[in-house]
Every structure is written in structure tokens, then in C-alpha cells.
């Protein structure tokens, strides 16, 4: 039981309070989801619950927070450890022990539980979270999903009444996220634990929640049942967007409910567009590279005047653009069939990479042409990052060849590699080391021999309004990614690689990123992104490569690969299967034209 009573939080150097007059009661056994854009105070709200705000972070707290009757003003986080379990954003940062078992037992030792109870609880927790076969493993050898489950186990093992989690599934592949959510679901239903959880990936969690707390960004908080809040929330998962668009009531939150409500819509779509969004003919014809570099889009009956700025909601327009865009070419086949003036942006054949005794990749072949946006998917540790690092020349292949625009990225000097390929690593902060944004941009210009100010200009296009004097580490996730992107793009590499770009990005930031990448592709760049984000892939990628156990197991047009896959299918595809619709944006025109349930007031 958590009570926020007129709570305001203000940090010393901030102009406005992060939270303002928050009144909120979270009842016993509720699974409460906290949603809102980056920087609206989600983490602050969560950290209030176990007293990290203000005891650890500083700042001033007005009002009071009561947790199981204890006032956080007088109880430090360690004094609340027996009633609140807390899992931070990066579980790795909070690990204290070498082995799974010791990690789990840590908080019980400090709470002084009797040894017999500890033994029993550890065994129970190992079973509850499915960790029994890794109990003796070193923490550093665990996969992302296992790590997150250990962190949750360590937080709930002392049986606190409340569990607080900050973005527990952001870094996980879809399957691992399912595991974690299943474990949480079990805690709520079997043990009656109260769970408070912040998450950007609403599509994963909103269906499990009993209540949604929405932070619109001005420090206030609204709360209600998921259906109520989702009807108007600024951030919403695709299932909700589709529901709003089609005017379904009650608003479905899960795939199952949506599918049941979607029967008329499916029939309507079959009538209106029996072929689905992507005509089969398109996939049969050999792909045509887009004119290099086109001002915007090849005009093929476009209803927008050529040269106009792309609209913010790129509905039918980008869809048509997608259709005209080269799909995937079967590897190697394209150049045999028709002469192609441009070299492929990347050419990989028979690539094998190993680290010590671990074979990360073997027998990988891949060709990517100009204008393609390729999504590399697969579970954590499947070899996605290895493929990108090999393409960027950071690791030496054991066998096989890698060429980016004809350059061998590992053998070439770093200065010439960056002109052929640019990689934005998983943590963009790695790329940044200057004290200010301005210095970072100047360094990037000097490194690549670009004209002074080129990087700053790029940054302005990617993320307007970034202050020159800000320290790169103080930027928001989205801005930091934009800065890293600008630093990489200033060398104008024809091939751009992104490793997990959407981690920690909210929906609007993701949309902005998608727009940028689409523009780059239209400009003749090729983009390869390794990601777990199926919704982003559905919206953005022209082609999907699935990697498993170091091998490519599928390679084809996005719709061909993801529709029908239980893990990689986006929500819209699951709702409208067997028809190959992938995104709300694709369905929108069909609904707006003639669907009887369409309600223009209901959708933004």
C-alpha cells in the first residue's frame, strides 16, 4: 500500500519541480504501470517509493509518501528494504555478488533472516523465476533476460509487500521480456505483491496492468484503469492506436481482445485491399535502387508536391515509397541479373567471427544495397552485435570476406574506414568524450576532415534545440543518440550501422529516429540496425535478417519474415493475421476511407 500525499519533488538546479502536488494511492496487490515521455519524472516517482528520493538523490520533497505506514522522510532506503524491493534501470549496475545464489541472498542477509528461511527462499525463488539451472553460474555469464530475472529475484526474495521496477524489459529481446513479465504476473497473482513499474514499451506491459499512472510532463499525475488512460494518453501501443482508430469499445489492450474485436475490420480489409498492403508483384520483380541521392522521394503518383518537407505522420506516402523502394535482393543475385552502377553498400560472404573459444558468427553472407533499411533480429547473444562490429571492422574475421563500399573495414586505416561505414554502438556514450556538445562536434569535424560546423549543423537537423554548452552525459537518451549519430554521419558513410538504437527512447523519440533513418535511406545511405523492437522494424525496415546461434536463419522482406512469427510479429500483424498488415499507419487510410466504425473524434 503506497500513499502519495501532496508530493512535490524539486531538484536544486532545476527550474521547475519534477513532481507537483501528486496525490496517488496504489492499493494492495495492484500491478500499476507508470507511463510518460522521457524526462517527465517516472524514475523520480518510483524512487520516491523506497526513499531514494530524497535520501540518496538530494533535492527537496514536499508532502509525504507513506509506504506500508512508514513515512519515507524518516526512513532511509535501507530501512524500507524489508517492505520495498527495488530494481533499477540497469540491473548490472546493481549487482554485488559473483554468483547467482549469493546475489539472491544478499538482501536477506542484511535483513537478518534465519539461515533456514534463507535456504528455503533461495530455492523457492530459483524455481519461481526459472533460474535453477544457473544457480552456480557467475553473474557475468548470464544472458540479459536471466540477469533481469536475477535482479527481480534479488529484490523480491525477502518477500517485500511492494516491488518497484524501472524499465525491466527495455533491454530484452521479445522472448526474454515475456519471461520476465510472466514472472511478474505470477508474483502479483500468486503472492499478492504490489508492483509499480515504469516502461516505455507499453505494447509489452499494458495488458497486464490493473492501473495506469500517466505523467503528462508538467509534474502532475493522472491515474485510472488502463482502458481509461489509454483512450487519451499521449503514448500508446499500436494495439491501442488501432483500437482508437477503429472505434472499438471497450478499448482492447491485449492481442486477444483486439483480435476478437477486429473480425469486422479484417473482413473490411479483405474487401478493400484483398492483396494486403504490399502487392505480391512487387516482391517478384528485381529491386531497383533508388535514384542516388534524390531530393526526397521518387514521385510515383505522389499526392504531395515534390520537394515538400515530409509530413510528420507519414501515412500512405511512405507506404507507397516503401513499395517503390528496393526490397531485399536475394544475396548476390542482383548483380548477376542487371548491371548496377553502384557497388553494394556492404558485401559479406562466408563470414566467421570468434572470441576465444566462442564462435559468434559462421557462414554469414549478406549483401545490402543503397537505400535499404535492414533490421537484424534475434535473441540476445545470437550474434547481431558481432555482425555489426565485423562490418565496422572492429573484429577480425576468422574467415570470409567483408567489404563496405569495396573497402575491407578491418584492414583499412580507421580514418578511411569511417568514410565507408559508421557504427553507433549500443551505448552511444562510448563515442563521446568531450566536455561539451560544441567541443564534441568540433572534434568530429577535425577527425573526419569535414568543414567546421558540419557536425553541429547535422545535430541541429537531427535534434533541434540542443544547447552547445551541455555536457554530453547530461543529454536525454534521445539527444545523446542524435549527437552520436551526428558524430558518425559527419563522415558521410554510405553504410550506417545502429546497435539497439531504441533502448530508452520513448515513442515520439523513436518516431523521430525512424524519420531520420528513412531520410538517410532516401538519400542513398544503406542502414543496418540490430534491434529487438518489433514495432520499429515493422514501421521502418525494408528487409529483415534473423540471426540465431551465429547463423542467418531468415532473410527477406519485412512482411514475409515477421508476419506469422510468434516473437517477431508486430501487434498489428498479430491482430490482422493472416493478412500482412504491419503498422497502424498502413491500415489508417483503409479505415479512414470507408470503415463504418471509424470515429474521427476518437483518434488524434
Amino acid at each position, binding site marked *: 500500500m503506497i500513499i502519495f500525499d501532496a508530493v512535490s519533488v524539486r531538484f536544486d538546479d532545476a527550474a521547475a519541480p519534477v513532481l507537483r502536488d501528486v496525490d496517488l494511492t496504489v492499493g494492495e496487490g495492484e500491478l500499476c504501470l507508470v507511463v510518460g515521455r522521457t524526462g517527465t519524472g517516472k524514475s523520480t516517482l518510483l524512487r520516491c517509493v523506497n526513499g*531514494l528520493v530524497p*535520501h*540518496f538523490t538530494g533535492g527537496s520533497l514536499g508532502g509525504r509518501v507513506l509506504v506500508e505506514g512508514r513515512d519515507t522522510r524518516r526512513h*532511509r*532506503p*535501507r*530501512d*524500507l*528494504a*524489508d517492505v*520495498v*524491493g*527495488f530494481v*533499477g534501470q*540497469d540491473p548490472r*549496475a*546493481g*549487482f*554485488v555478488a*559473483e554468483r547467482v*545464489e*549469493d546475489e539472491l541472498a*544478499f*538482501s*536477506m*542477509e*542484511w*535483513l*537478518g533472516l534465519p*539461515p533456514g528461511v534463507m*535456504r528455503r527462499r*533461495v530455492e523457492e525463488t530459483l524455481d519461481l523465476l526459472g533460474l535453477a*539451472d544457473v544457480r*552456480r553460474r*557467475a553473474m557475468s555469464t548470464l544472458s540479459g533476460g536471466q540477469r533481469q530475472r536475477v535482479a527481480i529475484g*534479488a529484490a523480491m526474495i*525477502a518477500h517485500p509487500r511492494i516491488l518497484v521496477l524501472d524499465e525491466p524489459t527495455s533491454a530484452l529481446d521479445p522472448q526474454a521480456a515475456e519471461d520476465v513479465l510472466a514472472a511478474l504476473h505470477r508474483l502479483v497473482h500468486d503472492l499478492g505483491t504490489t508492483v509499480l513499474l515504469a516502461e516505455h514499451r507499453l505494447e509489452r506491459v499494458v495488458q497486464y496492468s490493473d492501473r495506469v499512472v500517466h505523467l503528462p510532463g508538467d509534474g502532475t499525475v493522472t491515474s485510472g484503469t488502463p482502458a481509461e488512460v489509454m483512450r487519451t494518453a499521449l503514448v500508446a501501443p499500436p494495439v491501442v492506436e488501432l483500437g482508437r482508430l477503429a472505434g472499438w469499445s471497450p478499448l482492447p489492450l491485449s492481442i486477444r481482445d483486439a483480435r476478437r474485436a477486429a473480425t469486422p475490420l479484417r473482413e473490411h480489409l479483405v474487401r478493400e485491399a484483398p492483396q494486403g498492403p504490399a502487392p505480391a508483384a512487387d516482391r517478384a520483380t528485381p529491386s531497383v535502387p533508388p535514384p542516388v541521392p534524390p531530393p526526397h522521394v521518387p514521385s510515383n503518383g505522389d499526392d504531395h508536391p515534390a520537394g515538400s518537407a515530409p509530413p510528420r505522420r507519414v501515412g500512405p506516402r511512405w507506404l507507397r515509397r516503401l513499395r517503390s523502394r528496393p526490397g531485399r535482393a536475394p544475396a548476390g543475385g542482383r548483380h548477376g541479373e542487371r548491371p548496377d552502377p553502384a557497388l553494394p553498400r556492404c558485401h559479406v560472404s562466408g563470414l566467421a567471427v570468434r572470441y576465444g573459444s566462442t564462435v559468434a558468427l559462421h557462414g554469414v553472407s549478406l549483401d545490402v544495397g543503397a537505400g535499404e533499411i535492414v533490421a537484424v533480429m534475434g535473441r540476445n547473444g545470437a550474434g547481431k552485435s558481432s555482425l555489426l*562490429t565485423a562490418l*565496422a*571492422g*572492429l573484429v577480425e574475421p576468422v574467415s570470409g570476406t567483408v567489404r563496405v563500399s569495396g573497402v575491407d573495414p578491418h584492414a583499412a586505416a*580507421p*580514418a578511411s*574506414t*569511417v*568514410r565507408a561505414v*559508421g557504427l553507433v*554502438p549500443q*551505448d552511444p*556514450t*562510448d*563515442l*563521446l*568524450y568531450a566536455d561539451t556538445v560544441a567541443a564534441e562536434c568540433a572534434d568530429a569535424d577535425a*577527425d*573526419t576532415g569535414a568543414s567546421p560546423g558540419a557536425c553541429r549543423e547535422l545535430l541541429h537537423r537531427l535534434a533541434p534545440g540542443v544547447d552547445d554548452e551541455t555536457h554530453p*552525459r547530461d543529454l536525454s537518451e534521445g539527444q545523446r543518440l542524435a549527437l552520436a549519430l551526428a*558524430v*558518425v554521419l559527419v*563522415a558521410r558513410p554510405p553504410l550506417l550501422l545502429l546497435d539497439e538504437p531504441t533502448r530508452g527512447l520513448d515513442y515520439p523519440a523513436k518516431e523521430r529516429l525512424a524519420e531520420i533513418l528513412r531520410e538517410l535511406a532516401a538519400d542513398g545511405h544503406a542502414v543496418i540496425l540490430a534491434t529487438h523492437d518489433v514495432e520499429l522494424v515493422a514501421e521502418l525496415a525494408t528487409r529483415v535478417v534473423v540471426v540465431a546461434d551465429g547463423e542467418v536463419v531468415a532473410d527477406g522482406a519485412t512482411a514475409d519474415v515477421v508476419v506469422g512469427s510468434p516473437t517477431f510479429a508486430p501487434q498489428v500483424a498479430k491482430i490482422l493475421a493472416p493478412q500482412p498488415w504491419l503498422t497502424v499507419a498502413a491500415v489508417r487510410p483503409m479505415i479512414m476511407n470507408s470503415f463504418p466504425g471509424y470515429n474521427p473524434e476518437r483518434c488524434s
Partner: protein
Amino acid sequence: MSRDGLHRALADIRLPRALHAGAWWLWALGLAAAASRTTNPLLLALLIAVAAYVVAARRGDEPWSRSFAVFLKLGLLIIAVRMTIQVLFTSAYGGGTVVVRLPELTLPEWAAGVKLGGPITAETLTLAFYDGLRLAAILACIGAANALADARRLLRSVPGALYEAGVALVVAMTFAPRLIEDAGRVRRAHRLRGRHARGIRAIGRVAMPVLQGSLERSLDLAAAMDSRGFGRAAAVHPRCRRSSGPLVLAGLVGVCVGLYGLLDGSTATAVAPAGLGIGLASAVTGLVLGGRGAQRTRYRPDPWRTPEWLVAGSGVVVAAAFVVAGALGQAGMNLMVVPLIMPDLPLLATVGALAALAPAWLAPPHRVRQEVPS
């Protein structure tokens, strides 16, 4: 011991498990103390061989288990350095067999008039070799402990009053390797910006992000540890808490004095045992006082049973044998180099060293890491 007790002890020895880290460290310290008491190369080689044999017989399959060879190589390096220094700065041994005569160079007055080069005698070389070998043997003993026991587990089994500090140290040890990992990542990222990550300037560019990153992460870690109850106030009486600190500190000083006396061998014979005894007593009192009333409990504390006693005991035996042999002035404990003689093996010390071989059979075998048997 009754028949039952004997059976249980035997079963304890045979059943695979990890031996208490403290037992391994006591055994290794015993070996090291023994090594410090002799310059006889045969005895030193015997001690190294004993340590190596036990390591080979009882080490586990953890990452640190392979570290023994590193310590041996470090020992070789020490011998080489010691002998090089001896060659360069010839000491004042007058007579002896000249092996080679290096060109002589006397540094000017302002450099203290150090003499470089000159005649190298077999005696000085041998002395340097013995000296280096002794250091190498001590290092090998430490290496053996390191390979056989997880230092983290040792820290986790410190007494209650030091538990907080112990846990902090353990966490720091887990944290340190991440720095190296980070540095590698940042260096790779430099390549992505088209730079060579080498040279003096690159060090600063790599170090800054790594340090900033680790600072950020240590704040996260502190928050996580706090939320998990680390450092919850134990209900210790203030007077106990106040008196335990100075007692422990004084005790540790006493123990240091005692150990120094024990290792050095040239201090008055009464100082070492007295310092050690008084220091230990005071430290233990402090720890008991400080740990009283603490609410903490331990998850699966390492047991201390018969094999632990036997292993630690064998360490005590070898140290005692060498100390006694030295005190009795047995021939062959400290070799004269003038005149050069062939060393022989003093009986008492040899038997003592062989006693330290016992853990190869008396310690339980290492538990092979295996997941749930199917």
C-alpha cells in the same frame, strides 16, 4: 576419536566440496613463513614443488584457478631482476671466484659515487640467486592460495564487525574487472571515430569516459545496495561500538609487529610471540564486541570441519618446523656462500615441508561444476 567420528571425518574428506578459503590461506601463509626462514635452494625448491603439487591436485575450474603459473613466472622475473641488480651494482665481497669481469664505471660524486660493473664473483651471484629464489618461493605460496581459494569467499567470512567492510571490498573486487572491459569498449569506439587509440593523448581520451562511466555506475551501485538494506543499523550498544574500533586497530598493530618479528627472525625472540598473542587477543575482543547484537545472518556460511583443521594444521606444522630448525641452528637452513658449498637437506625442515603436501589428499576434492544431473 570414536569410530563414528572417524567415519564422519573420512566422509568429510572424500565428499567433494570447496574447502574454506581461510584454511587454504592459513596453509599458504605457513608455507610462506617457512620459505622466509631459509635460503637453502633445495628447501625453497621443495616448498615450491609442494605448493605446485597441491595446486595441481586440488584446484577448481574457476577463472582464478589458472593464476598459479602467473605467480611462478613472476617469481622467475624476480630472480632475474635480483641477479641483474647484483651484476650491475657489485657488492663488496672481497674474495671469491671471478666469473666474468665487466667494464667498471664509477659514477661522479653527485651521483653518490656508485660503482657500476667490475668483477662478478660466483659467490655474489649465488647469494643473489638464493635471495631471489626465496622471494619467488614466498610469491608461489601466495599464488597457490590464490589459485585454491576464492579471495571473495575469504572476505565474506570475516567476523561480524568487519562484515560491512568485507562486503564493500568484495563488491569493489567484482567491480574492478568491469573497468578493463569498459576501457576496451571505449578504445573500440575510438576506432569508430577514425582514430588510432594509441599514444599519450589517447590515454586521456580513453580514461575520461571510463572514469566518468564508472563514477556513474558506482552511484547506481550505491543506490542499489542501499535499497537492498546494506548497512542497516544493527542494534549494537554505543559503548560496545565505540570501544571495538580502537581495540581492533591496536590488535592489528600488535599482530603486524608479531608477524614481522616472526618473518624477520632477527628481532628478540620474545617480541614475536608476545606481539602476536596480545594483538590477536585485543583484535578478537574488539571484533566480538563490535559484532554483538548485529542482526545480520549469513547465507550458507562455509563450514569449518575436519579437513579445514587438517589443512590449516599442516600449514602450522611446516612453519613451526622451519622456525624450530632455524632456532636450533641446524646446518643447511642458512647457507654460507663463502666458501661455496653444495647445499644439503636438513632433516627436520624437509619433513616439515613434506607435511605441507598432506592437503593434496586431506582436502576434499573440488566439486566439478555441473548443473542438475539429468
